């Protein structure tokens, strides 16, 4: 029986064929179709300037999504990223407003982000607290702690001559700096996941945690490393947000859209919430898709509820498509402990 099954070439269904395609290419295809629809329906959409603009606006959440993807690939999740990103950026501007030098403020807040990453890692890897709750709690602690201890205004402006403002101004080798920085993060993340031992083990750990552990992989330190990478990239994303924006608000509601966008990009990009499956190319494609969608929603002047409806619908469609292409089996079903 077994031999016969091996010999017979299985007749792949369209679903199986689609499932074998790298999801990044699939999403890039859909993004191209969306661009085409945008070009037909919206004046000035498909121009070099607008593409540059939407890439620039997508840089921050793209960087955030890369960090989120690294954690999710290892079967984790990090809900503290938006708190770290905006909280640390706000605190940096608050320190600068109080007269601290920019680099001192950045070093201080990089330390805070590092601590949050390490705490997340220890909670999840060593104390085995579910990542969903551990990072939700540390995110709230970060937001609340920074708000109570470090902020005394609702709004901070970024000084024009600061290094943070330079993150999104000017260009490097003809590429606008914000896009260049985000591109560099994507390339480094791709090299890390694809070509380093730590990256490969991260993915293996997400695929099958027990096997990775029994094969001698340092799973716990790797988990901590993932959360540290995520927190530091969140810090960079926060500075990029402030740099592009020129100012920052400190209301709690400003954190939600950033977290939602980062998770949406990751899921649309085909990074499985069960861990182990997904690529940095997929995350890049997801970021491009969401960037194009956001740009079109703004240019079409849709009301906020309608925009939420579209974004929510896209996320549901992405999750449903992922579930259809990669049906749950006994192995993946066990990973829903997030």
């Amino acid at each position, binding site marked *: 029986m077994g031999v016969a099954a091996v010999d017979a070439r299985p007749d792949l269904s369209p679903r199986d064929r689609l499932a074998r395609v790298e999801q990044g290419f699939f999403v890039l295809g859909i993004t191209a179709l969306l661009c085409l629809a945008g070009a037909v329906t*919206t*004046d*000035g*959409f498909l*121009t070099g*300037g*607008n593409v540059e*603009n*939407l890439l*620039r*606006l997508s840089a921050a959440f793209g960087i955030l999504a890369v960090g989120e993807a690294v954690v999710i690939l290892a079967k984790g999740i990090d809900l503290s990223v938006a708190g770290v990103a905006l909280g640390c950026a706000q605190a940096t501007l608050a320190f600068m407003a109080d007269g601290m030098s920019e680099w001192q403020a950045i070093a201080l807040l990089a330390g805070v982000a590092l601590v949050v990453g390490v705490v997340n890692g220890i909670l999840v890897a060593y104390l085995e607290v579910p990542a969903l709750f551990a990072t939700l709690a540390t995110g709230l602690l970060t937001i609340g702690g920074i*708000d109570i201890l470090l*902020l*005394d*205004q*609702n*709004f901070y*402006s970024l000084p024009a001559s600061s290094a943070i403002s330079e993150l999104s*101004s000017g260009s490097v080798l003809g590429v606008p700096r914000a896009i260049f920085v985000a591109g560099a993060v994507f390339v480094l993340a791709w090299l890390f996941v694809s070509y380093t031992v730590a990256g490969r083990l991260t993915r293996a750990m997400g695929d099958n945690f027990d096997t990775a552990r029994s094969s001698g992989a340092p799973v716990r330190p790797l988990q901590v490393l993932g959360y540290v990478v995520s927190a530091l990239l969140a810090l960079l994303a926060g500075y990029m*947000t402030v740099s*592009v*924006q*020129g*100012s*920052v*608000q*400190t*209301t*709690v*509601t*400003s954190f939600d*859209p*950033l977290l939602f966008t980062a998770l949406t990009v990751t899921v649309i990009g085909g990074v499985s919430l069960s861990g182990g499956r997904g690529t940095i190319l997929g995350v890049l494609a997801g970021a491009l898709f969401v960037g194009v969608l*956001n*740009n079109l929603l*703004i*240019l*079409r*002047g*849709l*009301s*906020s*509820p309608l*925009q939420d409806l579209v974004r929510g619908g896209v996320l549901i469609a992405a999750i449903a498509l992922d579930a259809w292409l990669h049906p749950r089996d006994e192995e993946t079903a066990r990973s829903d402990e997030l």
Partner: protein
Amino acid sequence: MKKKLTALLTAAATAMTLAGCTVDRGGSSAGGGAGGGKQTFGRNVQLFDAHKKTHEAMKGKRIAFVPILYKGYNLTLNWGSTMERAFGNLGADFRVYDPNFDTDKMVKIINDLVARRAVDVLILHNPDVGVLTKQIDAAERAGIHTVVVNMVSSRLGDAFIGVDSVHAAEDITRRAVQDCEKRGAPKRMAIIDGPGNDAASLMWSKGVHHVLDPAGYEVVTTAHTQWQNALAQQAAASITQQQKNNICAYMVAYDLNAIAVGDAVADAAERGVIRPDSIGVYTMAADTRWCDALRAGKVTASAAYDVQGVGEAAVVTAQQLVQGGAPAGSTHTVAYVSHTVVDRSNVDDTTIACYKGR
């Protein structure tokens, strides 16, 4: 005999009911709310009695201020600090409750204060017309006076104090039209408001359209921001990229969002997407940080309104309600503070512009 007995019973029942009402609506802060007490003043008053009675009327009265956001927010800090000074001088117990931009939390705070009858006067910063309807109704039934600031509520409460938003929007739009015509710019503008379906956004759009439509101007798009600077900046960057110099102004409903829009326009000019000074940025209100952006040339003009006047008027209204002795919810008034257009030429000479938190 039967008729006399019925009349006697009816009279007794009426007297008991009235007595019950009087006890329930007593003006002291120890029991129910402030509404329904005795009038503090009559037709005449002795010179020093006025001082004594005013303080006596307010002494120990519990005043709660529930804004949509307090910590670090100049607008509500300005109101709150004015109230704190004035009520403190009068010996009233003034407290601020901060929902931190969370409407659900705001509703819970008010429900709790009303259920415990923990206040005599509620000063509410309504986020939208319909949000606090039930809470104001419940407060009135509990004998608590309500003063609503900034955004009118469909259940009016005892008093509303705020800016005449539609009128202010019309005034600043007229200014924008004048500027566009001086530059010979295209008759096209974009509106950037809040969520879009809320009363503040609707009033802003109505005022802007009142002026633009008859003047033959086109609103190329209306972008919605949820009052978030990130979204305001994204919208301005995208629209500027799309329209380039084919647009003459942004009409932004919220002064802090206008700073982000100004940054996006300045950035587009720096990158050569548009000509410098070819797109104006207009708004309503003038926070001190908006004034900094104005001095830096990032924004153009605003219909500044008397922010501190709102806080002062709320204090005065609360005193009048307590002294008047009328039951909570028995009188209803709507009053507007002043507003005027400010730009770089007059901003430093206009007392109501550049408000601070303290």
